[in-house]
């Protein structure tokens, strides 16, 4: 959809001076413009390489409101294309994940190759001799991958992915060290829907301030040593840094930023049993230490604009459904080809906090919904994201603030404004 008359938005009234207007969470017209100007124009995360491991592997995903298929062709190249037959619009695939040699529309049998090109259609003669199959392939998106993370964009003019990511790439490299020497693999995902605007979710992954409040009951279920690790607001050692283009990093546990460091530190009590299991399986001591240190995940959240986060030990993916409805996926990660015992521990740690029955996510979901409910009152009041401005300073890649600063939210809203002004 092209908007014939550009909608004149008073962007300063919507976000300025670290204050967000209430309508940012509630205005359906604004939501439609966001989908157009942001989600149709930027890099959107669609899948991880390990979810489509083989030739012909595919999964369904979304770019903004549009359903797409992510597929690996016979040569190993990844394609992302709109899940819509070029004839009369039926979806060509309704299987969430699997393996195929082609996609065929169930309505009139138009058949598409793994790269989206139209291969054959029944009784083509009724289209005349000048029918050009090359013009009737599935609509393809621009696709690039960094470190197994597959991004797609409708914008043909978009900058290379690495330029969009900028300093984010070095943090992705650090995050992927939790493979413990093995490639990182998606082991499964928790999915839940929350009645909230997508930006409430975007904010949360860079919000350390809520952790000891909302997640008190999670903290209470931890052993003393781990609980201490999560008391990052007390120690105040971490920080939040604006990485540009709406991205930010929130370092909660500085000693777990680089998992290849401090490998000689004693193995924490909660991992002692796992370490012994690995030794019994014949892993040498240096590898045991590397794996065990990686099992708990990294000590930071890397929040990318607009839809994916690398959060401690999992990927958080958001999908805006409507102005007051957002779907969330928490993708559990493990070690591809790594010891089963280590992957089992990662699965149990993920289930402990994440998902519809975790000790953390349900409390998050409750407060996000409470934000959406609360904004029905006082429509002229502003949402404040000014925390930590008081001692924000320049960091290596952008403004850097206290661990509980709202620096990451300001980074995201600055990018939001930049994209919405085009």
């Amino acid at each position, binding site marked *: 959809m092209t908007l014939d008359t550009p909608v004149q938005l008073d962007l300063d009234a919507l976000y300025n001076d670290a204050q967000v207007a209430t309508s940012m969470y509630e205005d359906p017209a604004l939501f439609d413009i966001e989908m157009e100007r942001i989600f149709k124009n930027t890099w959107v995360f669609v899948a991880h390489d390990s979810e489509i491991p083989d030739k012909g592997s595919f999964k369904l995903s979304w770019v903004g409101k549009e359903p797409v298929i992510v597929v690996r062709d016979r040569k190993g190249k990844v394609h992302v294309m709109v899940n819509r037959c070029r004839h009369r619009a039926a979806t060509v695939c309704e299987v969430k994940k699997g393996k195929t040699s082609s996609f065929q529309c169930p309505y009139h049998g138009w058949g598409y190759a793994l790269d989206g090109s139209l291969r054959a259609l029944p009784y083509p003669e009724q289209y005349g001799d000048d029918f050009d199959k090359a013009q009737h392939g599935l609509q393809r998106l621009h696709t690039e991958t960094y470190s197994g993370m597959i991004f797609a964009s409708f914008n043909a003019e978009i900058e290379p992915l690495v330029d969009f990511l900028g300093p984010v790439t070095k943090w992705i490299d650090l995050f992927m060290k939790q493979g413990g020497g093995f490639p990182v693999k998606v082991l499964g995902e928790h999915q*839940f829907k929350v009645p909230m605007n997508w930006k409430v979710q975007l904010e949360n992954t860079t919000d350390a301030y809520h952790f000891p409040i909302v997640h008190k009951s999670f903290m*209470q*279920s931890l052993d003393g040593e781990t609980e201490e690790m999560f008391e990052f607001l007390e120690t105040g050692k971490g920080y939040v840094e604006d990485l540009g283009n709406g991205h930010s990093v929130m370092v909660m546990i500085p000693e777990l930023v680089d998992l290849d460091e401090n490998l000689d530190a004693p193995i924490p009590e909660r991992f002692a049993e796992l370490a012994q299991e690995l030794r019994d399986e014949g892993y040498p001591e240096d590898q045991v230490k590397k794996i065990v240190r990686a099992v708990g995940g990294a000590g930071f959240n890397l929040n990318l604009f607009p839809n994916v986060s690398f959060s401690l030990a999992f990927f958080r993916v958001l999908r805006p459904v409507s102005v007051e409805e957002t779907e969330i996926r928490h993708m559990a990660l493990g070690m591809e080809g790594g010891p089963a015992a280590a*992957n*089992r521990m990662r699965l149990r740690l993920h*289930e402990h906090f994440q998902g*519809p*029955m975790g000790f953390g996510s*349900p409390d998050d979901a409750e407060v996000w919904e409470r934000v959406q*409910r609360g904004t029905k009152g006082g429509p002229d009041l502003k949402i404040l994201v000014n925390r930590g401005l008081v001692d924000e300073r320049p960091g290596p890649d952008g403004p850097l603030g206290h661990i509980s600063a709202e620096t990451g939210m300001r980074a995201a809203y600055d990018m939001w404004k930049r994209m919405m002004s085009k």
Partner: protein
Amino acid sequence: MNDMSRTPGSMLLSDVAEFLWHEADLLDRKDYDAWLSLWTGKGHYILPIGDTPDAELADALNLCYDNDKMRRDRIARFQAGFSISSAPPAETIRTVSRIVIEAAEGDRVTIRSAEHLIEDKFGRQRVWAANVTHRLIRVDGSFRIEDKIVRLLNSDGMLNSFSYLF
């Protein structure tokens, strides 16, 4: 008398139904201490995702995979009052029916049943349906739960958060 291969089918079914309805009633009333005492303490309470076979659940991502300690921690979280999603929790009303005795041997019986649950919170009701498997052990004329596996109909779809047990 604990040998259930000698118990007439209709009697066993009525014993099992009485037990499952008692458990359902405890869960709706959130009498979690009584619920914990129904367990042998050895097995697992699991909500799988998708159709992963029972034998592979330990190596798969589940909605929950609780041993005795995690069950107790989960209940403690519900009861302590610090979890905003469970203070107050959603109210629930459930029915358990379509009970099938899958196997009965010695003091062990495996039961399949259907569970329908309606939750109410924020003036909003949601409906959930599940296939449930209980592995029970006959103890002193009643039963204890060894394992309980609850397969939600849409376990691999978009869910919401749960502030109660199935």
